[in-house]
């Protein structure tokens, strides 16, 4: 049974329910890499609000992969100012998820490339991506797309 080919488009309010599920799946994946990324029980409610705001914001890009009405992939990028550095505007990819069945068919590459196009149009001069340090799948993915490690966030629990 062949899966339908997804179409990449900008997210709309009607997508929020399905897209929020993908955001929470991404957070749960992150949780696998570090106990300091433990997902809150209200994460799904927060994800809905978060996407609602992002869709309306001029400083965000939210794209979804739509397979005949089913949202199977998502990418969200934000514009960030860099007052101390040149170039001054960064497009930061902070949410990126593809459902397991739709992986290994270059849909991830397409989502990221499309997000880069959109972020550039909004003024981004460099593109960054954030994910847990231990996520080697993400490391390999971004390396292949020409990204390199640029900044590290280290954490420790002080509870």
């Amino acid at each position: 049974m062949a899966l339908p080919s997804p179409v990449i488009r900008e997210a709309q309010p009607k997508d929020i329910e399905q897209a929020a599920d993908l955001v929470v799946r991404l957070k749960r994946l992150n949780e696998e890499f570090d106990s300091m990324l433990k997902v809150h029980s209200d994460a799904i409610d927060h994800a809905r609000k978060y996407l609602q705001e992002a869709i309306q914001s001029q400083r965000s890009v939210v794209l979804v992969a739509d397979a005949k009405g089913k949202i199977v992939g998502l990418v969200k990028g934000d514009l960030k100012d860099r007052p101390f550095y040149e170039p001054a505007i960064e497009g930061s990819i902070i949410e990126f998820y593809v459902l397991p069945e739709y992986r290994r068919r270059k849909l991830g590459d397409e989502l990221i490339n499309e997000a880069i196009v959109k972020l550039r149009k909004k003024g981004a001069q460099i593109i960054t991506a954030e994910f847990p340090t231990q996520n080697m799948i993400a490391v390999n993915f971004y390396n292949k797309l020409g990204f390199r490690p640029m900044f590290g966030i280290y954490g420790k629990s002080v509870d």
Partner: protein
Amino acid sequence: MIPRVPIRDLSDFSIYYTPGVAAVSRAIHEKPDLVFEYTNRWNTIAIVTDGSRVLGLGNIGPEASLPVMEGKALIFKYLGAVDAFPHPIRVQDVEEFVNAVEMMEPAFGGINLEDISSPKCFEILERLRNRLEIPVWHDDQQGTAGVTYAALVNALHLTSRKLGSTRIVFFGSGAANLAAARLVIHAGCDPGDIFLVDTKGILHPERADMDQLLLKNRWKYDLAIRTNRERITGGLKEALKGADVLIAASQPDPTLVKPEWVASMNSDPIVFALANPVPEIWPEDATKAGAKIVATGRSDFANQVNNSLLFPAVFRGILDVRGRTVTDDMVVSAAEALAKFARDRGLREDYIIPTMEEWEVFPHVARVVGEKAVELNLARKKMSGSEIYEHALTMIKRARNSLKALVEAGLISAPPNGGN
């Protein structure tokens, strides 16, 4: 192991050992594959474990695993005439394990992996199969899968079913069932008609723990993506509705499969309850609930699905032709030969697979494995099917007779109190 050469007096050692042996070493140095002809490497295998999942005892470590490996070696000798060397190793991780076995390779004609925890056993088998030039076998995967498939073939035959249009539910997702599901798919079953059930329910491509599986058990992850076309959710109860076959390899608990769930299966359902020592449902209860054919892992019930029906014969065949690997195709062929043997003797609902007493089946299975290796150009020694059969038969008979002769001569003592 018994010496193959007579020692008449100490002067014989100048032939078997130095200086005579140097010529043999030189020849092997020139042409390394001669080691399979000039030494006993061809018929010597290592039974390797890290002791991380021994029987139902868990991670008891390499030392405590040794008696189990010795027992396995005895089965290899008695049923397959294979000289198997029990070889627990003290290693911590997958890479170390693989490296250790690779270092041992020159001494052995094959490797039998034993009692390694899941899912690391998948990683180890996969890497060793790629890296070694001798067959590598993990009984908890290929052995169990092969024997299960053999029993399944005949159960389907008896109930007029075909693999292409049969709904199969696998209950339990340890090494045995993951390997069995993969083998059944390899043999031609549509993965969409397969349903895997674990402690969290039925696997499907969008289950909430998919990414966890991706990181921790990619074999299960891959099956989750390919199986369960209809996306049914729930547990074993939901999975069994309308199913043709249940293959349970989970926990020893006779209450895990409820009779009413068996009753909800398709007509003439097939139930394999393979947990040892206690099946997931007692055969009597399964039959009362409507099961047409029931198999377990136990010898005191009909239809025992037992690895020992396969592994001695698979090794006999692959070692005879000095094979370079054991492929899934060979496992399928071996299983089909096992199934055919039972068919030729006359299938019944309580006889879908040969019993352990029918040792005559072993040379037949050895033959198809060796033939397949020759056919796939994976054999160092080309032999015909009938040559492999005759050789296997002779080897197995000789092993049995040697052990008997040793007991009769008093060199192997009888068990105390006559074994009672």
